[in-house]
């Protein structure tokens, strides 16, 4: 069935995946495809970015109608920063891995967030280096064992916590096995103005899928605790909001209005969690870490602060499309300059 701009879901696909059958990353590609299709994203306006890794290969496997850039290991954020500065009309979807983001790329990840470059930044987090065959990454859980590389005695980085502390205004966690939630979060992220980070636990079925491990598929299926039931309502979604909200007691329902007019609706499940409260977001993550709970959902949302391009005070025309007359000052300008040096 065609979406609002007349495209089928298959139009949003990419080349066939070369990942291992069952790899969590492939599910995420599908969730991106579905989200883009549902939102009727114009592919020619979308750019895909990634670093290096199995996860970073995936942009080739979705949205074939969009330009993509598979950059270098861990330094994709800077490339995205440049591209989004050059052309502020673009919609950016970035995919990275836990090694790409948490190990080699950690500095760039944190600085991207600090700058608030507008883009969706998805971490396909399997707690391991897939493409190089199973070494520990900075998000591998302390005490975790791997067949070949043995015991990990270092603490895991919590990329969501790092994002919040770093000033990110949209921070979510999900599970590749939870299609609906992941999809909804991706849509919401695409509606956000600024850097939106989604840390998606995405099992590596080849190197880190032992049910005992926190990043395994079985573990996720068994232990995922959704912080809320989440729905995304595109701009112009019609029905009297009051009615709905009326059914819910105080705090049972949270509605977040995104700057593009869409709305995220969070229905309480059993956790009390208001993503609009920074302290509670941090405490939720700290608790999850302490008690080893796998909590997913929209963890933190903040009124968008200025995006990076806004802090640069650029003309409205994207820099990539300036006329030569705007790019080169006049002959007179040069002449009077020369005078000033005489």
């Amino acid at each position, binding site marked *: 069935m065609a979406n609002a701009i007349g495209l089928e879901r298959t139009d949003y696909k990419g080349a066939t995946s070369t990942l291992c059958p069952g790899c969590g990353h492939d599910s995420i590609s599908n969730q991106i495809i579905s989200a883009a299709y549902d939102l009727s994203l114009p592919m020619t306006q979308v*750019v895909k970015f990634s670093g290096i890794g199995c996860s970073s290969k995936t942009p080739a496997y979705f949205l074939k109608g969009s330009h993509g850039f598979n950059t270098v290991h861990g330094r994709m954020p800077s*490339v*995205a920063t440049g591209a989004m500065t050059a052309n502020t009309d673009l919609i950016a979807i970035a995919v990275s891995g836990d090694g790409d983001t948490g190990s080699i790329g950690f500095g760039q990840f944190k*600085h991207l967030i600090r700058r608030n470059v507008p883009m969706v930044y998805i971490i396909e987090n399997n707690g391991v280096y897939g493409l190089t065959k199973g070494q520990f990454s900075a998000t591998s859980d302390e005490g975790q064992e791997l067949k070949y590389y043995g015991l990990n005695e270092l603490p895991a980085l919590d990329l969501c916590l790092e994002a919040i502390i770093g000033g990110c205004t949209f921070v979510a966690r999900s599970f590749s096995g939870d299609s609906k939630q992941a999809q909804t979060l991706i849509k919401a992220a695409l509606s956000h103005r600024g850097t939106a980070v989604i840390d998606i636990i995405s099992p590596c079925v080849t190197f880190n899928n032992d049910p005992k491990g926190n990043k395994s598929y079985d573990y996720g299926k068994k232990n995922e605790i959704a912080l809320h039931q989440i729905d995304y309502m595109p701009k112009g979604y019609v029905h009297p909001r009051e009615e709905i909200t009326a059914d819910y007691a105080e705090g049972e329902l949270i509605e977040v209005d995104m700057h593009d007019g869409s709305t995220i609706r969070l229905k309480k499940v059993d956790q009390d969690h208001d993503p609009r409260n920074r302290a509670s977001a941090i405490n939720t993550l700290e608790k999850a870490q302490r008690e080893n709970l796998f909590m997913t959902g929209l963890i933190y949302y903040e009124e968008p602060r200025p995006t990076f391009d806004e802090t*640069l005070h650029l003309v*409205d025309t994207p820099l990539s499309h300036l006329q030569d007359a705007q790019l080169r*000052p006049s002959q007179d300008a040069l002449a009077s300059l020369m005078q000033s040096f005489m």
Partner: protein
Amino acid sequence: MAVNIQPDVQTQFTGASIVNDFALSVATKNGSGSQTSNAVIIRSLFRMGIPVSGKNLFPSNIKGLPTWYTIRANKDGYIARSATTEVAVCFNQDTAAEDIANLKSGGVVVIPSDWKWGQSRADVTYYELPVKELLTQAQIGTDFRERIANMVYVGAVAYLFGLPLDMINRALLDQFNNKAKPAAMNYAVIELAYNWSRDNLVKADPYKFETMNGTAGKILIEGNEASALGSIFGGVSVVAWYPITPSTSLVDSIMENLSLRKDPETGKNTIAIVQAEDELAAIGTIIGAGWAGARSLTATSGPGISLMAEFTGLAQFAEIPCVIWDVTRMGPSTGLPTRTSQGDLLFIHFLSHGDSRHPVLLPGTVKECFEFGWRALDYAEQLQTPVFVMSDLDLGMNLWMSDPFDYPDQPIQHGKVLDKERLAQFLEEKNEWMRYRDYDGDGVGYRTLPGTDHPRAAYFTRGTGHNEAATYSERSDDWMKNLERLRHKFETMRDLLPHPIVDHDPSKKIGILSFGSNDSAIIEARDLMAANGVQTNYMRVRAVPFAHNVREFVLSHEHVYVIENNFDGQMAQLLRMEISEDTRHMVSLACGDTLPMSAQWVIDQIMAHQ
């Protein structure tokens, strides 16, 4: 031209005077504000029509360490560093003794009267200035004292060597961009010192400045500012950088001149200036920007170049335009951040692992800094590859006299970009479009920009193996084909990039080959050698890979001297790599003594081999 209102100096000096042909070196402490006083002197000389150059020798620290500023006045227009100093203004007690020791015999010392400077030399003239007293007289508050003390030597120098006070006053006003109050305060001290000198000093040396007509229509500018302006007129739209000496002032002057690129109505910028968190991020940013269609550049120096190695390989292999200015300083490692060198040539040419090679432009004058500033951005888009421009600390941070810059003689070149319409047309004509296919036989393909609203505009960019259609491929044949095209692109550069400047008279047996900021020293050296009957030809290489006539030049001489300011003789190494004929007649003369090259060094080296 202002007239010379020089009063007749009372003098006991009898011999012939030396006019507009000596070097005056001012020794002070870093951060003491002597830039202003030195600028005042050099600008006044320039306005007097005397060809000048200024060499700033400053430490890698902010306050307190020794710094020297050498102003060379030369009636014949030679602006290279002079190997000798005739006048030493010793306003740094820590170095006074050594500064005096290094002085040329017959030279002059200007020094505060209450200082000890060890052995006094019989063969130099001393002028002692009562700095403290004069400052007290002028009622300068303690917090200004240090800075303004420097104005005392300005006054003395003005009197002793003949700098008209009105010139100085004008220069002062420029320095304080016409803020009357500070200018007046400083001028008062200058005048005081001037008058004191007139009343108390007896001129006993031959050195004099005299108004002449050697600077009419010329400009005085630092290379980094010229590069910045060139880039601005070249249409740079994204600048990403990380501060590092001596490249910082290049980006600074893009900021200072940003008004040239603001939208008249909104006052908004057509240049984004991104201060990155390091050099990896800086080059990553300009690669992303170049990929998305901006004209992008970064400016850095040695350590930054090292950090850009991986990304440079990506840009070359994925074929993304961007410009990297390397304003070189003395290495290896952190080395001497405030000393000059041309030591990055080999490294940037071969930057990144696995058969990587890159074009390097080699400006030799501030005029070329401007010209290559805009051309580099054109080349980058025409060649779809990172283009390096190698300037150096001497060229970039010192003041150079030059003819005014010429406005670009051609419209902005964007190379082969297919927008919506052109893509449609291309598909129409060719029934296909493959990003990495060589349609024109120059090794350069056609690219589309992200955001191009055409269903077939998209392609996937990667640093991994790919075929002409930009699809991932591990096939040997795809790989070879791609690398052969890239090699072909490399050959294309030889014709496209700036060709050498050549002065070649077949009757002469000696050839000098050099590049970059050594130019002024070589010009001067050639004249002097010619005057002594040693005739030389000269080729100044302006880009790597070499134009085809470089080989010829080397092979068509009995002696070729490759002159460069690094330690390993890197240009000579590059030449040998390309020339398999016997090159034993080619001698590598590499200086690398941390200083700008002097004509004397060039002459001594060549003569030692002749």
